[in-house]
């Protein structure tokens, strides 16, 4: 699978869903989110900063996440994002939608 195709797997909506899911465990930095997606997906899903940061700003604009500047490990200021209540709710609905969608696709693939 070429890199281009891998990137295509990660459509905008999916990226937002994954971001919301990762933030449920606690505040994360943009770079952290990118690394975790890469690692957790076993290097299958890679995202570029050019896609991630606009997505974060979009989520913040929609009020699903909020940002805070805190000191990071090497004592530099870093921007950490965390879920808002609206974000938590959105995550639940999106996750449910995703499950039903994936389940449906799965069911067809198994049968065929």
């Amino acid at each position, binding site marked *: 699978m070429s890199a281009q195709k891998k990137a295509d797997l990660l459509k905008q909506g999916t990226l937002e869903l994954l971001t919301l899911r990762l933030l449920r465990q606690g505040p994360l930095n943009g770079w952290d989110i990118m690394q975790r997606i890469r690692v957790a997906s076993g290097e299958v899903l890679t995202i*570029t900063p050019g896609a991630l*940061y*606009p997505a974060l700003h979009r989520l913040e604009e929609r009020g699903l996440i909020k940002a805070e500047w805190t000191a*990071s490990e090497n004592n530099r200021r870093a*921007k950490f994002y965390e879920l808002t209540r609206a974000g938590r709710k959105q995550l639940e609905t999106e996750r449910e939608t995703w499950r039903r969608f994936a389940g449906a696709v799965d069911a067809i693939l198994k049968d065929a």
Partner: protein
Amino acid sequence: MMGRLRRRLRALLQRGEADRELEEELRHHLEREAGLNVRAGMSEGEARRAARRDFGGVEQAKELCREARGVRVFEDLLQDLRFGLRGLRKSPTFTLAAVLTLALGIGANTAIFSVIDALLLRPLPYDDAGRLVWIWGDNRQLGVSQGYLSTGDIFDFGRQSTRLESVAAWTTVPINLVEETRSERLEGILVSPNFFGTLGVRVAVGRDFEPGEGREGRNQFVIISDGLWRRRFGADPGVIGRTLTLDRNDVNSFTVIGVAPPEVKFPLRTDVWMPDFDEEEGDERGGHDLRAVARLKRGATLEQAQDELNIIAGSLERQYPKTNAGWRVTLTSARDVILGTPYRAVWILLAAVGCVLLIACANVANLQLARAAGRGKEIALRAALGAGRGRIIRQLLTESVLLALVGGAVGLLIAWWGVGLLRAMSPDTIPRLRDAGIDGRVLAFTAAAAVFSGLAFGLIPSIQSSRPDLMEALKAGGRGTSVAGGGRRTRGALVVAEVAVTALLLVGAGLLLKSFWLLSNVAPGFKADHVLTAGISLSRDLGAQTPERHKALFSQAIERVRALHGVETVGAISHLPFGGRGVNLPFTLPGREPSPDADATRAELRVVNPEYFEAMSVPVRRGRAFNAQDTDSSPKVLVVNEAFAGMFLRDSEPVGRRLRVNLRPGFEGEVVGVVGDVRHRGYDAEPRPEIYVSYMQNTVWPVMNLVLRTGVEPGSLAPEVRGELERVAPTAAVFNVRPLNDFLSDSVAERRLNLLLLLVFACVSLATAAAGIFGVTAYTVTQRTHEIGIRMALGARPGDVLRLVVGQGSRLIMCGVGLGLAAAFVVTRLMAGLFYGVSASDPATFILVGLSLCAVAIPACYVPASRAARVDPLIVLRGE
């Protein structure tokens, strides 16, 4: 929602800080990435470079983030506005021309809209006015349409109808307000007690009439108008219970029980509402002399009520065959009646003024195109630097709307001035026009008109110039020729459109002008020049109780004014031509089988003095006029007009026939003369059969209008005449002391206003279109200087160049004229009701408009063409 707006605003206002934060966030990311790379074994520099490479376009990411925050829309707008203002400041001539053109267009539209708003859009002062309907009496056998009704029928409609909530009767009467020393003539209206309830009007002070108060003996109450209340009682709320001495048929005192709200001026101007007509008393069906207004039941439609009244009218006809034969009714919505003729005219004016705005837009669009051609390089540069096409269109449109808003602001001043002018010119028949003014709604309209025009004239040029051929434009250096080529066809189309719309307006104005001219030249049947009128309304009380006394007073008044210097002849008539009043009475021809229908033989009755016909220059066609020997003691005589003789006395010589007029007491006499027809009710009203009787023969009318033929300017005698009359009859009300010509001129005031407005619009658009053609030709010539220079170097003579340029312009103009006339052929049909004596497709008007438009437009392209013809080929070629 609010939170998002606040975030956006903050992002906009603290843009610097937001950008710094974004920068820091992304730098932090790069550092972490580089740190990871170092841990993987790269050198510091190598790690940083790799991080950057993996990141991709940092600037692009920043831009995407900004966009995600929605800051862009605001930022772009501000930037566009800044650019627009700078651009407009850079080309002041263009800006001035565009703003003035737009101001004229938007200003005229605003003025007309404020009139529409006052006349049509503001609600009528009646509760739920949509349910009000007018009931008209029709009788096809008698040729009556939209006529009057009888008391008995009106009450029957009210009683029997299930679709009408209530039906009220009314009729106007002149009334004298009698005071100690003098009288004032008032506009009165007799109404059934349910009148205000039917209209849905609540009196402002006091109470409404109660059922049964129309009965004889119980009707000594009045409701007065707001105007009279203020004028006579200083708006005293204690007016309720006060008495007024009013003279209608007899002098009586009436108790004021209420004051009507100021906005109620039913039908046009009323001072006093008096209750009359009672169901138990009135079963009178012969006399059709009342109007009726009714209120539909909730949910009932006009058609349902019409069907039902048809049935009721049919059964009344069977029940009362003598009086009701052939009588039917027509219902129309009160809105149509009250708004009347101005209704249609005003929409036509709005369409016309909309055309003016369209022409203004076309012109500014042309100017924009020409300017865009000069700016081709600037736009190409912006496109090359990465501005998207949508972004460029948006910027150019912002500039256009900005321009239009400035034009709108100036236009508002023009409108403010124009509305004042319109109010001052408003004819008496359209009282609501006086309420026109500039308010919030009008302002909103102006703003909308401005934005619309900005988009209208901005769209085509901005789309045109947003797709420049980059290479061409940048290469071509100073001469931005690339856009010009593409714009030529568009400019041509705009010229054609401008000329076409102008032709349309000119045809409309031309037809109105011709109608007006034809109408003013209709001979009214009398000569109004040098005639002064003066109305005297005698009170029957106060020393003039008997007809003899009445007659003596009139004779005395006539004698006194005749003695005034400058007065040649003094006539007197009960109902002045063009005065708006008349009386219609049944008559019989003794010795002839009486007509089965009493109403079939009715005629207008006029009471005159012997000199009336001479004073008005009404010709005596047969027999003689009245003379001083026709008195109470001599045999009774009558004079009829030609229409009467033609309709009723066709079978034999009219002079010598006997006639009985159903006056009380009956008046029977011999016809001694036939006089010329008089258009009593206006220029466009066909003469009706008329019977004249002499006031000397015991047929005194309480109101007489003196008509003084003078040797001097009639208006100059007015104060003297008034003074003289007030001395003769101190308790009489003297009114309408003014030149007779004023009445004639008032009768066409509405038409004159329509004509004047349409003429102004047509002229403005003609001037605008001419300026537009001049501008476009001048621009084209400039663009083609080089080509013309080459042609001339190759041997073309100035005449050839002139022919070339003028020929091209003329083709466009002809095309526009043709299109415009074709459109006019269709459109003027909608205006047919406003014309008089001229067909909507009057060939003379069409030809004249076509020719005069060419006569103005072709010279407009001749001037720049002749400049082109003077081009010196040497200079042009050297310039290369």
